[in-house]
């Protein structure tokens, strides 16, 4: 079973292909998409178990020797990300059954979702910097399909922006990889790390580090490169928004964390200092956005930006607490953003509007929705024992250890802003006088409730079960902290 680490990539890919043959049969598409993701979930859970038992799993495609062929590497960090990705996608698919509409489902909706998962999992798993570009393209092209599918005027307008931004950043990605190759002469990520250590990171490598930060910063939406995100993400329907919000920016964040812990570790004063300043600015910009809008979607979308800032702030500390906090917070954020988007999707479905000022009194008509929203909101803000707490605690602890007092104060203050922004939704939508609601069918509502409840419960378990998850998180942050584990696993032969 040396190919095990590829299964979470291959299985969604296989099912995405099979779905191409059944364009008109929606029920079959729904079933096959769910079956494929459940199979992939089983494979990824087994992968986490294997990585825990036997350490980092690697394979070099086509039986080529390691620095020459394309290596795929699954350490605990990427295995956990892959598993979380598949869980969220499975729930998004179930949520889509009742909320997407048959018109979209007829046009390869589920295929596109599965192709996107292929790309996301591939980007998390690959150990080759050019191959990472290829998987970025796979997930981006699938996301182009998802963002434009439906062809509403707003979607068409925003997808032009989205495609343009991503084409430019992809071009920059290739250019950066070419620079890097011209300096170190290799594309294998473990080998690059070794070569950079040998030449001791001269100025040109630092320039490449900044270029990489720009490339992945556009994908991961850091300040000041997040400008495209609020508009583009608000255009597609809620399940797609949940998928994008929970997964796509996280791929950029993962890439920054990987390259900044594996490659560019010799001039941390400059590179990681820059990363930290940008992450703090990202948090501040996100906070301003999250408080500025009365639109449900925009508030939660700006919360993505804040979370990206917090994770990268943790990663920039380069110490044990900071990095394990970043890993904790990254996984937490994927779960909780999915849950929040599901919940606001239901609020929008029930009230027929996304404008906070036109809602009110939902607590009387939809109490269960209200309570689950409150749990998710507290989880997002990091109220113990919910899932956001431990990650933020570790990140701030790491920042204090590294003497970055002001940054930690910003992170802590941002928690209050996050809490305020999501509680504002709660106050406007659930308290107050009930507004006249448009009559809606109950069946889609129940169909959306099931995956939402599962995701909220998962995020609560993630917070409560911190103690039990800790060994996995430690493994994940150890690989980030000690690149030699990663390098030895890839180049051992």
């Amino acid at each position, binding site marked *: 079973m*040396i190919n095990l680490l*590829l299964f979470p990539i291959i299985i969604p890919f296989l099912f995405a*292909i099979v779905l*191409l*043959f059944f364009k008109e049969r929606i029920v079959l598409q729904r079933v096959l998409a769910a079956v494929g993701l459940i199979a992939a979930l089983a494979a990824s859970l087994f992968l986490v178990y294997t990585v825990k038992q036997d350490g980092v799993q690697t*394979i070099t*495609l*086509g039986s080529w020797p390691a620095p020459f062929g394309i290596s795929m590497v699954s350490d605990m960090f990427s295995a956990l990300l892959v598993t979380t990705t598949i869980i969220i996608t499975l729930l998004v698919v179930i949520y889509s059954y009742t909320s997407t509409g048959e018109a979209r489902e007829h046009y390869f909706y589920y295929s596109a979702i599965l192709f996107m998962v292929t790309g996301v999992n591939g980007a998390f798993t690959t150990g080759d910097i050019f191959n990472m570009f290829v998987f970025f393209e796979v997930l981006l092209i699938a996301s182009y399909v998802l963002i434009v599918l439906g062809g509403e005027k707003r979607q068409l307008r925003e997808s032009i922006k989205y495609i343009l931004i991503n084409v430019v950043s992809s071009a920059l990605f290739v250019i950066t990889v070419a620079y890097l190759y011209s300096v170190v002469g290799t594309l294998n990520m473990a080998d690059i790390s070794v070569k950079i250590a040998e030449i001791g990171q001269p100025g040109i490598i630092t320039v490449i580090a900044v270029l990489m930060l720009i490339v992945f910063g556009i994908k991961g939406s850091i300040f000041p490169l997040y400008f495209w995100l609020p508009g583009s993400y608000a255009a597609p329907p809620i399940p797609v928004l949940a998928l994008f919000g929970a997964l796509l920016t996280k791929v950029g964040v993962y890439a920054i964390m990987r390259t900044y812990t594996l490659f560019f570790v010799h001039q941390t004063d400059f590179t990681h200092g820059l990363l930290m300043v940008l992450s703090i600015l990202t948090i501040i910009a996100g906070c301003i956005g999250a408080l500025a809008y009365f639109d449900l979607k925009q508030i939660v979308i700006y919360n993505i930006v804040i979370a990206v800032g917090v994770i990268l702030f943790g990663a920039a500390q380069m110490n044990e607490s900071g990095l394990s906090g970043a890993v904790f917070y990254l996984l937490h954020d994927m779960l909780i953003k999915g849950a929040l988007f599901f919940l606001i999707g239901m609020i929008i479905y029930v009230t027929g509007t996304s404008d906070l000022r036109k809602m009110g009194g939902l607590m009387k008509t939809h109490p269960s929705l209200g309570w689950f929203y409150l749990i998710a909101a507290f989880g997002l803000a990091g109220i113990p024992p919910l899932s956001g707490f431990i990650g933020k605690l570790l990140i701030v602890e790491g920042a204090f250890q590294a003497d970055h007092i002001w940054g930690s104060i910003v992170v802590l203050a941002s928690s209050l802003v996050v809490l305020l922004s999501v509680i504002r939704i709660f106050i406007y939508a659930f308290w107050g006088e009930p507004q006249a609601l448009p009559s809606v069918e109950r069946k889609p509502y129940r169909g959306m409730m099931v995956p939402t409840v599962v995701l909220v419960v998962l995020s609560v378990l993630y917070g409560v079960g911190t103690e039990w998850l800790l060994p996995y998180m430690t493994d994940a942050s150890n690989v980030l902290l000690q690149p030699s584990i990663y390098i030895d696993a890839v180049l051992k032969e």
Partner: protein
Amino acid sequence: MRTNDVILQTTTKVVFFIIFLFAIHIFFAGHYTPGGGFVGGLLTTGALVLLLLAFDLKTVQKALPFNFVIVIGIGLLLALGTAAGSILFNVPFFTHAFDDFTLPLFGETSLHTAMLFDAGVYLVVVGSAMTIIQSIGGDA
């Protein structure tokens, strides 16, 4: 608006087959020399586009009644299947096998599973290029 394109149509009927055969040649040349599924697929699409220019969308669809999306699917399955075959033998994904065989008519021939993968690439390229051209051309 219909122009007299007898010359174009007559030439196309011959040239189409020349281009198509050349595409097949390039496809097999990719075995050890420059060429392969991608270029072969593009050349084939070029031939099909020439048909579309000389005649019209309906005629070509009648002559080649394929759903090109299905062609993409078959191509992807073929490529993935070839690559995934290595899983059965527990060797790294994408490991290929090849050997020399003595075939009637061809004589000593080197056969390589990479050819099956390339055939998948060929079908994907033809399928996606034709899907794009048909959906853009169909709107006009």
